[in-house]
C-alpha cells in the first residue's frame, strides 16, 4: 500500500495542473484569425520577404487586416494573388513578373584580376580588401554570395561572373540584398534594353579595366527615340518605364554592353 499514496500524489498534481491549463486555455483563449491562416496556406511559404513583410505569416496577417494588397508576393505570382483575392473577396490586380539581372558582364575573358585574393570566400569580405580583387572596382567579384543567398538555385557563378537562370528566378530579391556591389536589380520580365555594366569611372579608366565596360559615349542616348536612356557618372541607365524595346541602342553600343534581354 506504500506505493498507492505516491502514485495518487503524482496523478493528483498532474490532474490539477491539467485542469488549471484547461481552464486557463478557455479563459484566455486568443481568437484565431481564420482568414490569415487560410491565406498562409495559399502563400508559397518561402519566407523570402519580397513582399516587404516579415515572412509569409506577417504578409498573411497584414492581408487579413486589409493593410496590404494581394499581388505583392512575387514568388507566388499571378496564381497566388488570384487565390488570395478569392479568400479576401477583392480584385487580384496585375502582378508584373520580374526577374533579377546582374548588371555586369565582366567575366574573366574581358577583365582581369589585379591580385590573387586568398581570403574568406565571400564577396562581402573580398570587396573590403583594397577595392576588391578585380581590375574593375564596380564589377562582379564572382565568389557567389548571391548564389548562396538564392533559395531557388537560380544563380550560378561561371568564369568569375554570376549568371541568373531567369526561368528559375522568382524575384524574391535575396540576391539583390546579398550583393555587396549592388549589381543585381529586379527588372520587369519583358524584352527591354538592359545596361549590363555598373562602372562609373571615366571612359578611359573603364576601358583599361574591362573590354565590355560602359564608357559613357552617349551614342545610345542620341539613338533612343523615346528618351529612355540617360548617362550619369559616365554610365548609361535605361528607364524601364519608358523603354519600348526597339533595340536601337543595343545596335549602336560600341562596347556591346547594352543588350536586349528577353527574361
Amino acid at each position: 500500500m506504500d506505493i498507492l499514496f505516491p502514485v495518487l500524489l503524482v496523478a493528483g498534481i498532474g490532474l490539477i495542473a491539467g485542469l488549471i491549463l484547461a481552464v486557463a486555455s478557455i479563459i484566455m483563449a486568443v481568437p484565431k484569425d481564420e482568414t490569415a491562416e487560410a491565406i498562409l496556406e495559399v502563400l508559397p511559404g518561402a519566407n523570402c520577404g519580397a513582399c516587404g513583410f516579415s515572412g509569409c505569416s506577417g504578409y498573411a496577417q497584414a492581408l487579413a487586416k486589409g493593410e496590404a494588397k494581394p499581388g505583392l508576393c512575387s514568388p507566388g505570382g499571378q496564381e497566388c494573388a488570384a487565390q488570395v483575392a478569392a479568400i479576401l473577396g477583392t480584385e487580384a490586380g496585375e502582378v508584373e513578373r520580374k526577374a533579377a539581372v546582374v548588371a555586369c558582364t565582366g567575366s574573366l575573358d574581358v577583365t582581369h584580376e589585379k591580385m590573387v585574393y586568398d581570403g574568406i570566400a565571400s564577396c562581402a569580405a573580398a570587396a573590403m580588401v583594397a577595392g576588391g580583387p578585380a581590375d574593375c572596382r564596380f564589377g562582379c567579384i564572382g565568389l557567389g554570395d548571391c548564389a548562396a543567398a538564392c533559395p531557388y538555385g537560380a544563380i550560378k557563378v561561371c568564369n568569375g561572373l554570376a549568371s541568373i537562370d531567369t526561368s528559375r528566378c522568382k524575384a524574391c530579391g535575396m540576391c539583390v540584398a546579398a550583393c555587396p556591389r549592388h549589381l543585381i536589380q529586379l527588372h520587369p520580365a519583358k524584352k527591354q534594353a538592359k545596361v549590363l555594366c555598373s562602372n562609373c569611372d571615366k571612359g578611359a579608366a573603364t576601358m583599361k579595366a574591362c573590354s565590355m565596360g560602359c564608357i559613357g559615349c552617349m551614342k545610345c542616348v542620341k539613338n533612343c527615340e523615346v528618351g529612355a536612356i540617360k548617362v550619369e557618372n559616365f554610365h548609361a541607365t535605361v528607364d524601364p518605364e519608358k523603354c519600348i524595346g526597339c533595340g536601337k541602342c543595343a545596335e549602336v553600343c560600341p562596347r556591346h554592353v547594352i543588350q536586349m534581354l528577353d527574361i
Partner: protein
Amino acid sequence: MIKSLIAIFLAAILTENYILNKFLGICPFLGVSKKLNTAVGMSCAVIAVMVIATAVTWPIYTLILVPNNLAYLQTIVFILIIAALVQLIETIMHKYMPPLYNALGIYLPLITTNCAVLGVTMLVIDKFYNPASPMGFSYVQALVNAFGSGVGFLVAMVIFAGVREKLEMCDVPKFLKGLPITLIAASLVAVSFLGFSGLVDGMLG
C-alpha cells in the same frame, strides 16, 4: 543578510554558472547562440521560467513531499510542474503580452525540457534547504540563486553569441568546421570562467 544575498547572486552568475561550470543547458547554448538577439530572447525566457519554477517547486517540496517522506519523487514531480508552468506562462503571455509572446514564443516550449531549469530547482534545494525554517530566509536565498542562475545563463549566451559571430568570419580548417570548432570555443569560454573561482569568497568573505 543583504551581503549573503549579493554573494549568492554573484556566485550563481560567475563561479557556479550553469552552462560554463555545471554544463547544464548545453543544448540551447549551442543551438540558439548563433545570433545575439535570439540568444538574449531565449535567455530572458529562461530567467523568468527559472525564478517562477523555483518559486513554485520549493513550497511543493518543503510542504508536500518532505512531510510525507516522498522526497525521492522530486525529479518526476518537478518535471511535471515545470512543464505545466511553462505552458501556463505561454497561455497567459499569448493573451496579455502578445509582443513578448511573439518575441519569446518559439523559445518558451523549448524551455519545458531544459535541464538547466530542472537543475536549478533541484540544486537550490540541495544547497539552501533547511528543515528548521523551510519557508524562511532560505526561500529568499533560493529565489535569488535562481535569478542569478538565469542571469548567468544570459551572460554565457551573450558572450558565446559574440564568440560565434567572430567565428563565422574565421577561416576554419575543414575538419573542424561546424560543431567541432563550436565545442572547442565553448570549452575555452568555460575555461576562462574558471578564472572567477574564489572571486566571490574573496570579495565578500
